[in-house]
């Protein structure tokens, strides 16, 4: 009866993080691998995302850092001959590749069984037309809709459905290509865009304003079926669930509505034949009990990761067990360890998810939110009440607010930002309430359920009390119960935050620690999953013993992503191996560090000084690690130290010496290390004077930066003036720094670990792009291929000097500029960097583990001499520009990438090709368009273009200047006129590869180049916009075919 257990299972990962498909798939993939390994099944993983935990040595038995395309996956299958495939743990990417392999007959040819939900069912859920038909057949209501494959058919269908309507693409992730369309002109434009990338588009009845409800459903092959969690979107239909504030469980549904939708969910899931886990979305009429099924995701999703963390039910792990054929009844509840997984968690708290956007990073980016996903990460806040959780969550997003209300500037055009939602609609609502808008008025404007608006009003009203009335014990209690932070209370009562904390302690107003146990206390559970609340009369736990606290990374955002979670997980593993109990504080539901089986105690909490101190006050740990989670915990260094918290690793005073530019400069002067000339300014005049003296271009940046927030290059006094204004509003506390920008310089990075200032291990990487491209957006090569030996020798020495001068213990990252053997230091981060997992896996030495050992004072001797490697690794950034409408897809000092991938190669060219293909770039096929601004860059690319021209592999198209230049050098090329003709060429997909190099490092206003790049992104045509990278890529293309790229597992290098 039981299906034969597979011996070897292939798991497809999700690749680089991008909008709509982020770190949640590291969670689901890792859980699946663990579940399979427990059964003695051999696991093979393909995932080029080197910064994931699932690609750790201790995880899958065999790991391939290869592109997730059907051709590469097929070659892995041919080599490894797995019995079965798991395709529902790697997001839409894995699902699409898996379906493609099946369609191509690959799975059949190699006898690979698909575990879990059958592909037939997956196809049904992916094809919106078939899906709607299937549901109508079983009398389940779906939205009126029509699938179309041509623009004409779209127009026709729109007439029957009527405007406004919603357009969505089939087979897409995160609602890409979907929009609310109000008229025909818009419809035609959007249809053309969408049909350029997908074969089918769906036109649907507009359900804006209906409640949006999701259920996570689990089903086994015996037909046992449960809904693990339901969730309600605070932002109703019309705003993508990934863009919405979401609460679990639903708050405004009656028993009838809750169970009606639950029953429908189960009917649908059963009729589809799902085995494992899926997500079903409903629209529910706010004026009756009518509903529509919106969609089913027959795979683990962002919502399932959230549901898993919101309830404590390990969905991905259970789904993997069910895929292997287990009965849900047999699978134990891993939280209580005594009860069964065949149940539905009862929550005795509220969990709220809030998206994290980074739209400010992109010039010209559209800030409105609707049916397409734009957010780059999310946080989850847990509280006893909605208000408590909401204010926690808003702080957790690390966007500089104290909560719903506080010292952040009011939203000026709040009314319009409520009607046409933007990324700060929640603050616009608060502002409106402060202006006396009623709940009813706001409901009319936003269509948000009145219940949620009442909750917001309660907070806003209370802030008025805090402002005008004395801070009594009762009032302080109430404020804390409503989720107000000490900072927020301090702001309103006009006193220092520390005073509020003292007052609280004196009045014994402290939070209690509660467990998440999946059964609301009904059964005793030995759970490690914790949160804090002010609505409690007792702690659920007692302080632990011999503990080390690791501060996590907070929400994923541009510049701080899965890499930091990787470091945190390594730190926790090391702590445990050394006999300590590990405590993690983090608030990001997409992480592995917040999995139930990672640490001994997990506080799903804010990474704020207040909350970290609350926890440390209670636990009294042996020490705290702040250097693994990126800049968020790192910023707490000095404050924690002032509160006598034992920080493990580099002394906070030394961290400050590295972070504070003045102190750092003094240190560099002392050790005689050069850096680009710089000045700290508070006035424009001083800035101009400095720029005049050192010469333009100059780089403008605030201190304590992460991912270059508000960094800019100014080439003229006018630009300088313009940019300074932006920088000044972003960072009030920290002054603006201006430095000389050195052009045509190489960038070199060191990642390493030291103990008491003595270097223990390091790895050196070089960037493909020249300095001026943010290190997070640059391609990194290990070991360096182009850097002079002399430069290598000297930078190494200088690195040692800095490490010693800062007396570093633990992780660090240093960046140098090199030009003609002249070296200058750019910056040092005394913490784990984004590149830690990349270098660790490249050299096969776990830097994060060594760093943790160093901080624990238990360093082992690292067997590390010279890395004499016979392979090369390349890390490539992954961008999400197609999501950020209006943004310029060009590399810049501001970081723009949302993720990264890496690949191994026997040589540099193989490595960079694999890596770039893994990042989503396609091979040029027939026609390449060149449009190169600067003559210097034209010259740089000439020799490779000539070579490719001689190979007769491509037809060349170029804009006027570039074409003239190439013709002069006997390259035959078709001239394309800038403006509409070239854009039409792209839209018609005549060219299949574009190299567009902008003139300089500055952001031009809307230019021809911009429209070429933007159109390329909107029509999904591969684009390279950096000359160094274009050169490297084209050289590799000229020498290698796809079949030359070897299929080698990590352990074969």
């Amino acid at each position, binding site marked *: 009866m039981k299906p034969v257990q597979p011996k070897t299972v292939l798991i497809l990962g999700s690749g680089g993080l991008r909008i709509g498909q982020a770190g949640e798939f590291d969670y689901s993939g890792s859980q699946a691998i663990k579940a399979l390994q427990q059964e003695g099944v051999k696991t093979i993983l393909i995932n080029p995302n080197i910064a994931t935990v699932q690609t750790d040595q201790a995880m899958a038995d065999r790991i391939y850092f290869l592109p997730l395309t059907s051709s590469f996956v097929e070659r892995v299958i041919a080599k490894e001959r797995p019995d079965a495939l798991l395709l529902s743990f790697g997001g839409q990417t894995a699902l699409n590749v898996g379906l493609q392999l099946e369609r191509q007959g690959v799975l059949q040819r190699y006898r690979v069984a698909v575990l879990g939900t059958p592909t037939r069912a997956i196809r049904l859920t992916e094809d919106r037309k078939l899906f709607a038909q299937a549901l109508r057949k079983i009398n389940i209501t779906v939205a009126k809709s029509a699938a179309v494959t041509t623009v004409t058919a779209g127009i026709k269908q729109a007439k029957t459905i009527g405007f406004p309507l919603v357009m969505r693409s089939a087979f897409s992730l995160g609602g890409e290509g979907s929009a609310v369309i109000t008229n025909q002109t818009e419809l035609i434009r959007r249809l053309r865009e969408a049909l350029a990338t997908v074969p089918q588009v769906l036109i649907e009845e507009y359900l804006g304003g209906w409640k949006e409800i999701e259920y996570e459903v689990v089903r086994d092959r015996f037909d046992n079926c449960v809904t693990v969690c339901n969730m309600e979107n605070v932002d109703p239909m019309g705003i993508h669930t990934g863009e919405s504030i979401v609460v679990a469980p639903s708050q405004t549904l009656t*028993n009838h509505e809750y169970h009606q939708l639950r029953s429908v969910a189960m009917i649908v899931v059963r009729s589809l034949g799902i085995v494992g886990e899926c997500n079903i979305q409903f629209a529910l009429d*706010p004026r009756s009990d009518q509903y529509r099924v919106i969609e089913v995701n027959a795979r683990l999703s962002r919502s399932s990761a959230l549901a898993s963390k919101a309830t404590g039910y390990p969905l991905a792990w259970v789904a993997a067990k069910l895929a292997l054929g287990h009965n849900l009844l047999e699978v134990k509840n891993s939280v209580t360890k005594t009860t069964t997984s065949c149940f539905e968690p009862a929550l005795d708290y509220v969990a709220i998810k809030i998206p994290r956007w980074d739209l400010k990073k992109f010039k010209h980016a559209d800030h409105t939110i609707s049916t397409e996903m734009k957010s780059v990460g999310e946080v989850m806040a847990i509280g006893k009440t909605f208000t408590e959780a909401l204010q926690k969550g808003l702080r957790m997003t690390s966007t500089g607010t104290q909560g719903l209300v506080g010292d952040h500037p009011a939203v000026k055009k709040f009314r319009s930002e409520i009607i046409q939602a933007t990324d700060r609609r929640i603050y616009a609502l608060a502002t409106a309430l402060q202006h006396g808008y009623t709940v009813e008025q706001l409901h009319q404007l936003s269509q948000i359920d009145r219940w949620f608006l009442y909750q917001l009003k309660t907070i806003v009203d209370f802030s008025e009390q805090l402002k005008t009335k004395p801070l009594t014990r009762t009032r302080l209690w109430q404020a804390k119960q409503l989720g107000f932070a000490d900072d927020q209370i301090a702001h309103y009562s006009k006193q220092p935050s520390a005073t509020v904390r003292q007052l609280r302690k004196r009045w014994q107003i402290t939070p209690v620690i509660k467990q998440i146990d999946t059964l609301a206390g009904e059964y005793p559970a030995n759970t490690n999953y914790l949160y804090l609340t002010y609505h409690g009369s007792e702690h659920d736990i007692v302080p632990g013993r011999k503990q080390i606290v690791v501060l996590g990374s907070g929400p994923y955002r541009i510049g701080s992503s899965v890499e930091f979670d990787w470091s945190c997980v390594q730190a926790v593993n090391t702590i445990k191996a050394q006999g300590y109990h590990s405590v993690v504080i983090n608030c990001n539901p997409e992480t592995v560090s917040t999995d139930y089986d990672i640490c001994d105690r997990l506080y799903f909490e804010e990474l704020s000084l207040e909350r970290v101190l609350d926890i440390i006050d209670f636990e009294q740990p042996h020490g705290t690690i702040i250097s693994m989670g990126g800049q968020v915990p790192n910023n707490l260094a000095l404050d924690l130290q002032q509160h006598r918290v034992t920080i493990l690793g580099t002394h906070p005073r030394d961290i400050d010496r590295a972070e504070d530019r003045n102190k750092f400069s003094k240190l560099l002067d002392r050790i005689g290390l050069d850096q680009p000339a710089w000045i700290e300014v508070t006035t424009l005049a001083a800035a101009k004077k400095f720029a005049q003296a050192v010469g333009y271009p100059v780089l403008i940046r605030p201190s304590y930066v992460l991912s270059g927030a508000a960094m800019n290059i100014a080439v003229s006094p006018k630009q300088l003036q313009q940019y300074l204004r932006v920088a000044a509003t972003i960072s009030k506390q920290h002054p603006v720094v201006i430095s000389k920008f050195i052009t045509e310089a190489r960038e070199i990075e060191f990642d390493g670990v030291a103990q008491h200032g003595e270097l223990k291990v390091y790895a050196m990487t070089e960037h493909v792009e020249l300095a001026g491209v943010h290190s997070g957006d640059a391609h990194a090569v290990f070991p360096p291929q182009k850097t002079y030996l002399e430069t290598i020798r000297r930078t190494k020495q200088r690195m040692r000097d800095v490490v010693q001068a800062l007396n570093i213990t633990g992780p660090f990252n240093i960046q140098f500029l090199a030009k003609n053997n002249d070296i200058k230091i750019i910056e040092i981060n005394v913490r784990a960097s984004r590149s830690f997992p990349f270098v660790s896996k490249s050299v096969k030495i776990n830097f994060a583990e060594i760093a943790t050992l160093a901080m624990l004072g238990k360093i082992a001797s690292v067997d590390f001499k010279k890395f004499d490697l016979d392979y090369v690794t390349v890390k490539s950034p992954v961008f999400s520009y197609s999501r950020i409408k209006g943004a310029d897809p060009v590399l810049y000092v501001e970081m723009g990438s949302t993720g990264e991938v890496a690949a191994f190669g026997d040589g540099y060219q193989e490595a960079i090709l694999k890596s770039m293909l893994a990042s989503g770039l396609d091979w040029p096929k027939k026609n390449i368009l060149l449009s190169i601004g600067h003559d210097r860059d034209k010259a740089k690319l000439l020799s490779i273009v000539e070579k490719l021209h001689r190979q007769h592999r491509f037809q060349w198209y170029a804009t006027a200047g570039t074409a003239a230049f190439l013709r002069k050098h006997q390259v035959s090329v078709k001239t394309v006129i800038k403006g509409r003709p070239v854009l039409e060429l792209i839209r018609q997909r005549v060219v299949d590869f574009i190299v567009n190099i902008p003139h300089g490092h500055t952001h031009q206003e809307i230019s021809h180049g911009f429209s070429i790049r933007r159109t390329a992104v909107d029509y999904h045509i591969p684009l390279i916009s950096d000359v160094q990278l274009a050169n490297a890529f084209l050289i590799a293309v000229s020498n290698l075919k796809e079949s030359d790229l070897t299929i080698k597992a990590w352990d074969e290098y």
Partner: protein
Amino acid sequence: MRAHLILDDGTVYQGESFGAALSITGEVVFNTGMTGYPESLTDPSYRGQILVYTYPLIGNYGVPEGEFESNQIQVRGVVVLQYQAHYAHWSAQQSLGEWLQYHGIPGITGIDTRAVTKRLRNHGVMLGQIVVGHDRPVTTIPDPNTQNLVAEVSCQKPMWYGSSRKQIILVDCGVKLSMIRSLTQRGIRIKRVPWDYNYVAELNDFVGVLISNGPGDPKQCRTTIAYAEQALRSGKPNFGICLGSQIQALAVGAKTYKLKYGHRAQNQPCQIVDSQRCLLTSQNHGYAVREHTLPKIWRVWFRNANDGSVEGIHHRTKPFFSVQFHPEANPGPHDSDYIFDYFVSML
């Protein structure tokens, strides 16, 4: 107004009063359901009890118009962490507080209901009281389980529902109206009779018997048990739900016992014995059937997948069966709804 929840072991929790400002006593029990407060508060099985909700926010969608599970609020008092005075729902007629006040039922908000739940879980269900304002707490709380609670909630005289030729006797020990709706929807005519009504002589006119849910200790229902014993002799389909299940068991000579803290939830997994299948059920009971006292001719039909307790019994040859959970749901999942079909198919 300030109010206190005082447990019999002396634990005191301070909160605020809502609903009726009255001091009351009762048996304190917790329920882990996250929705459906109008349904649970009107469930006659809660007679004599002070109900603690583990889900912290109660009252969100107000109280819709209409009847829920009986014509009145049955609990003696309600304990919540945060009562929601600002409700919102298209069907809402009034707030939960207004409704409680109208029915003279006190509520207390601001209580760490998880703390109360853990205490009840560790010590077992306890008697307790809600004391409002300056009222004095009572020193000895009468145990409602020593009273005949069923007599309080049962109907006074027979009532008819539905129109069909197939008619059954429904023994009302505190029946939830959803149970009646579940059967009339299936074309069954019901004669609802009081708990102590002698329907045995009338059985010739009826195709089956359903013994309903109800509050308290089943052993209090001696008359009901006696009639059930006689009804079983007729061989007609006999179906018990919740308290009705315990009465059926007692009628065939099995024993019942009091669970430490009962099952009151909407997520209780019940395995169909000797199958691979498990259903999620809504439950509200403090007593259960002792397995080894069951006559050999009976078998365990459903079993709780968490604690292994008996959740349903079935006669090996005759159409006699019962379930400890609530197939009529409300509140809770509808997974076991098919048991009504099963019953109807026997008739």
